[in-house]
């Protein structure tokens, strides 16, 4: 299989072995288009629905598009449709706060997310699409003895798995973030923090668009405004899907949705241990860069980072009750502002530009559900709670391997749906409940 960034490939835009080399983005191209004002070529194409596909991916977010991309690049499976009921990246992929890290609590979680960080590190080059990954460090604050103990626990598990992660003292935190109130007079004094230098933020739209462009180049079809209405299951096997644009025959359906994953699984008759909660986030007006690392406080239920544009992005824990509503609430903004000011009082005059919500599929053990189901050909990549975006690349890679080989990759063995029946839960709450 020819790699995507192979310079020796045909550059005439014609498809060859299912691979259509897209126009390569470069600094020269940028100047040329900038000066001439000419349009950029479309990054991915529109297609008519084929009557059948080898694989149908439901959900055009980073998980679904990455699955299609790695199916083609690693396994040569290109007769793939990605069905998205809105526009690509309109769900969780475009609503998250774009934090990437791997300092989880369980060894299986750490290994899994570390693979994702590694893929993110080379993603811009692999896709020839600048995803603006900024590894500016990630700080998880501890305000209680129990919190500090969990940070030490995580640090030791992380080190064992070869992750750069350590517990640091308040004076070191002050050096990294001078604006933070690390005094002992704070309402919740900071006792220490888990410092994770490889963590950081990325441009989440660019990740979606990059994968879409990559998957399209290999011949996968991306169908936007295409809603799955039913899944055809005969004798415990997937036979096809019904959409608002027509029926598709297929043997493999991958549920890569977030928020609506229960509704898609219901169509195949697969019951899931998921409750859907909204998670709200907010962004301020842009200011000069002053905040380098990502700051998370589980006790205060808040996390904050500064984007390349200078806006502060805030998030919190999920809303207090399950809902599919994506309306923001004033209590959220009020609580958030109070907690942010406890950490950084100097932000008192910052103004919030906008707030939004996304849907999080929460599982009982704060770990995803990946792999096979009792329905043959119906695969799950769901239950991504508040940590789905950072796992996009590795989920795509492992789901593609599962589809191509029929064997569950070792990296995701522990995340199977059957763990709930066996009572063999993962227990990632200590590192995922707020820290996303």
């Amino acid at each position: 299989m020819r790699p995507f960034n192979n310079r020796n490939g045909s550059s005439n835009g014609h498809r060859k072995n299912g691979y259509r080399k897209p126009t390569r983005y470069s600094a020269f191209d940028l100047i040329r288009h900038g000066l001439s004002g000419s349009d950029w070529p479309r990054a991915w194409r529109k297609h008519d629905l084929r009557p059948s596909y080898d694989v149908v991916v439901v959900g055009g977010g980073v998980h679904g598009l990455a699955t299609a991309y790695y199916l083609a690049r690693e396994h040569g499976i290109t007769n793939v449709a990605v069905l998205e009921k809105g526009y690509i990246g309109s769900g969780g992929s475009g609503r998250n706060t774009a934090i990437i890290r791997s300092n989880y609590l369980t060894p299986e979680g750490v290994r899994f997310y570390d693979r994702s960080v590694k893929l993110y590190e080379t993603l811009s080059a692999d896709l020839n699409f600048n995803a603006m990954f900024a590894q500016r460090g990630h700080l998880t604050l501890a305000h209680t003895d129990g919190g500090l103990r969990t940070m030490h626990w995580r640090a030791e598990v992380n080190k064992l798995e070869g992750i750069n992660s350590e517990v640091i003292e308040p004076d070191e935190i002050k050096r990294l973030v001078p604006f933070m109130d690390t005094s002992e007079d704070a309402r919740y004094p900071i006792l220490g923090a888990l410092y994770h230098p490889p963590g950081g933020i990325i441009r989440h739209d660019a990740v979606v668009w990059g994968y879409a462009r990559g998957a399209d180049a290999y011949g996968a079809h991306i169908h936007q405004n295409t809603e799955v209405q039913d899944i055809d299951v005969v004798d415990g096997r997937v036979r096809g899907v019904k959409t608002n644009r027509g029926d598709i025959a297929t043997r493999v359906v991958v549920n890569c949705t977030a928020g609506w994953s229960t509704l898609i699984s219901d169509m195949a008759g697969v019951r899931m241990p998921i409750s859907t909660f909204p998670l709200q986030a907010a962004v301020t007006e842009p200011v000069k860069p002053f905040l380098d690392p990502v700051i998370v406080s589980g006790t205060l239920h808040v996390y904050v980072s500064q984007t390349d544009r200078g806006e502060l992005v805030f998030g919190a824990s999920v809303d207090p009750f399950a809902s599919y509503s994506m309306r923001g609430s004033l209590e959220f903004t009020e609580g958030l502002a109070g907690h942010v000011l406890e950490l950084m009082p100097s932000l008192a005059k910052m103004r919030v530009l906008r707030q939004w919500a996304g849907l999080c599929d929460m599982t009982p053990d704060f770990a995803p559900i990946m792999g096979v189901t009792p329905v043959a050909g119906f695969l799950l990549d769901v239950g991504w709670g508040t940590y789905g975006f950072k796992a996009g690349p590795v989920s795509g890679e492992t789901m593609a391997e599962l589809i191509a080989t029929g064997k569950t990759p070792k990296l995701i063995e522990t995340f199977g749906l059957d763990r709930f029946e066996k009572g063999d839960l993962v227990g990632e709450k200590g590192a995922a409940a707020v820290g996303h």
Partner: protein
Amino acid sequence: MILLPCPYCGPRNASEFRYVGELSERPDPNATGAGEWRAFLYMRDNPAGWTTETWFHRAGCRQHLVVERHTVTNETRASGLPAAQLLYGKQEERATGGNVANDSGGAIY
């Protein structure tokens, strides 16, 4: 902010309540297998539409309530008896402050 119709206190802000979750029938622990028990513990309908769920009015009457709510629009249309009555049948008298004396397992204050 959504309002929940508490049968005891009238319509009150949702922030006064604690969300307990989807109403589900607990199987008899003595008669059920591990699979069915775990399905009760973990599996959820999680519908996008009308659902029946349990809330606890922690900053009000401190009663468990059953509420019907639309999970997309957050409209509520009915609330009613404490969940304990529906879930545990025989314990309804205790839940409503009824005939506690006949319950040999409960202390009388």
